[in-house]
């Protein structure tokens, strides 16, 4: 099947997932509520020290994105498991990479929207000034979300075959996400000005390398992960 047709199939999967989510809204509301709750709890835990709060902002934002993301990744395959749709999906002719690309696209839009809310709440709650290099901040959020979603979508597919998927996904995902989240958090910290010694550019380059490696590896291996 040609690349154009595969891309069409991937877009159809993403459209289906996002349409179903738009209609039910259950997942987005739940995920955003969890993320905001994490931010608020961290804000309270850090106390009234404005400097400490600002320093923790980047970590809090990415931590909230991580936990909320795990819920989203699990849900994206749960939709397929309900009513046996996953079996039908893998039976369609053509490459299974289109399934991965479609799921990745849908999860990226979903996590991206969640990050918009999380960052907005984080900026207000942690009293962070919007940096002059805000386009760079958006680029870091984009790269960090891409790494998070790539690994999350991949391991959620792997865990979807197991009855213990809710437990299995964090066990598989968290260790692999450490380099991505570390790079994203340090780059965000440097841009928000809470790490004056930090070099956002170096962390961003590292993030790009991780994203390229993880995207390539997961696309190559996905076929055998979803295979029966």
């Amino acid at each position: 099947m040609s690349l154009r047709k595969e891309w069409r199939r991937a877009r159809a999967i993403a459209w289906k997932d996002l349409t179903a989510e738009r209609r039910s809204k259950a997942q987005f509301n739940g995920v955003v509520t969890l993320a905001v709750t994490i931010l608020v709890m961290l804000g309270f835990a850090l106390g009234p020290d404005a400097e400490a709060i600002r320093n923790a902002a980047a970590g809090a934002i990415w931590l909230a994105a991580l936990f909320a993301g795990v819920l989203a990744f699990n849900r994206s395959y749960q939709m397929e498991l309900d009513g046996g749709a996953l079996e039908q999906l893998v039976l369609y002719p053509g490459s299974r990479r289109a399934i991965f690309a479609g799921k990745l696209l849908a999860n990226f839009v979903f996590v991206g929207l969640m990050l918009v809310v999380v960052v907005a709440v984080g900026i207000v709650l942690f009293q962070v000034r919007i940096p002059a290099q805000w386009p760079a901040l958006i680029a870091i959020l984009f790269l960090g979300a891409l790494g998070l979603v790539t690994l999350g979508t991949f391991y959620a597919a792997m865990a979807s075959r197991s009855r213990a998927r809710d437990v299995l996904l964090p066990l598989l995902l968290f260790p692999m996400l450490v380099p991505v989240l570390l790079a994203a958090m340090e780059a965000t910290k440097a841009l928000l000005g809470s790490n004056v010694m930090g070099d956002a550019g170096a962390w961003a380059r590292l993030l790009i390398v991780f994203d390229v490696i993880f995207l390539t590896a997961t696309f190559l291996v996905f076929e055998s992960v979803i295979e029966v």
Partner: protein
Amino acid sequence: MSEASGTPLAAIDATGVARRFGTTWVLRGVTLRVAPGEVVGLLGANGSGKSTLLRILSTLLRPHAGTARIAGHDVVRASHDVRSQVGFLAHSPALYADLTARENIAFAATMLDRAESDIESVLDRVGLMAAAERQVRGLSAGMQRRLALARLILMRPRVLLLDEPYSNLDPEGIQLMNALIAEWVADGAAALVVLHELAPAANVLHRTVTIVDGRIEAERAAHLSLAAGGK
């Protein structure tokens, strides 16, 4: 035609297929051939291995022993080729509850690389045009079955693997199912149909195969099975 013997290539050719779940053998060496243009009913008690055999033939499960071929393609080594030949109607309708009937079929059409004009025609064929804009969660079980059937029409399969296709269908739906099977078979397709009752499929069946404890115990012409009360 097979190269060596000149006999027609079987649509389904399973030899000694076995499969276990954990330590329990569900299939214990099933050998079965279905020719193009033939409709075979697969009978047996619950847990006898009928659905497992269909899932192996559709490439959803791998056999632990034996070989199975669909139109000459091995279900393990050439699973991609098998999938383009097979239309599998599972026991569950495999639909997306939050999407409308039309959206479900439009999604299937994209995945199968079919034209948009096909969407209307298959919905019309299964009698769901009036319900096309309704979300699947609001459709009855019978209507969901018809929608799954519409997806099967889009597939244009050469080999049909149908797991209890008549369940939840009203008499009109049963007639529709039989008309479609007859059309496909007249066009050279083959069908293996899991059944608990023979009566709904009486008009289209050629022969029946009965599985008992993972083995084929009886094989006979459909009219003999019907005379024996479908046992």
